């Protein structure tokens, strides 16, 4: 749960999400490309695990993953554009 782990997990989410952003556009115009489809499946798995772990330890990236306990935490900062998270 240390800071390093948080940074590493977040970097993993950023990297895998970007691969999927780029692959999504490629697959829109190459929907049957087997190599791209295999890559998608592989990266999706890694991303899902990283998001699950990050959300559990450090809070949600997606609003659908907000864990409602005694208060609403989604709108607690810092926000991404502040460059602090």
């Amino acid at each position, binding site marked *: 749960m240390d800071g390093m782990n948080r940074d590493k997990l977040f970097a993993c989410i950023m990297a895998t999400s970007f691969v999927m952003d780029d692959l999504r*556009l490629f697959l829109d115009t190459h929907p049957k490309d087997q190599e791209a489809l295999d890559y998608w499946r592989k990266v999706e798995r890694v991303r899902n695990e990283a998001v699950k772990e990050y959300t559990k330890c450090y809070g949600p990236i997606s609003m659908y993953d907000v864990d409602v306990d005694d208060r609403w935490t989604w709108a607690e900062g810092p926000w991404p554009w502040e460059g602090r998270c």
Partner: protein
Amino acid sequence: MWTYEKRLQYPVKITQCNPKLAQVIMSQFGGPDGELAASQRYLSQRYTMSNPKVAGLLTDIGTEEMAHMEMVCAIVHQLTRDLTPQQIVEGGFEKYYVDHTLGLWPQSAGGIPFTATFFQSKGDPITDLIEDMAAEQKARTTYDNILRLVHDQEVCEPIKFLREREIIHFQRFGEALRMIQDDLDCKNFYAFNPSMDKECKK
């Protein structure tokens, strides 16, 4: 619909303010070849895109452009936050500041407000895709122009990322145009508007 993810597409962490640079980079928020125009261009055009795969591509690229708009705004915000009145005057930022303080407002570097006339939605798939390819190149040139003025590595890296995405989008739009043309009579691609004239499919 859309949902928000609490992260940028590529990190923006700028520690040195620079109001002069902010004023230039602002153009990629609300200027003629900026990310706001790009997102609204693609997301408006998709309704009359005859090929469903290309309509999907317009949705996905339009969505990515919104994430790019957020990155550009983050850059401008981080370059201008905590400015003192003295830095505002020395950095030539006073004309923007007087109307918007340090808030984000979509305008070009020259102060021209964002307008829907920056983009077209023509309702003809070939026409729209050729506009989109040109738009990606214009945005790429704008980022090249910005990069010649940037010496701060913290600003340079996200701008370089955005520039590269323009090239990818251009490539995908080129493929989309070919997909549209593959459904048409190659002797005259321009005889029909594939979103209006149903008899055009070969």
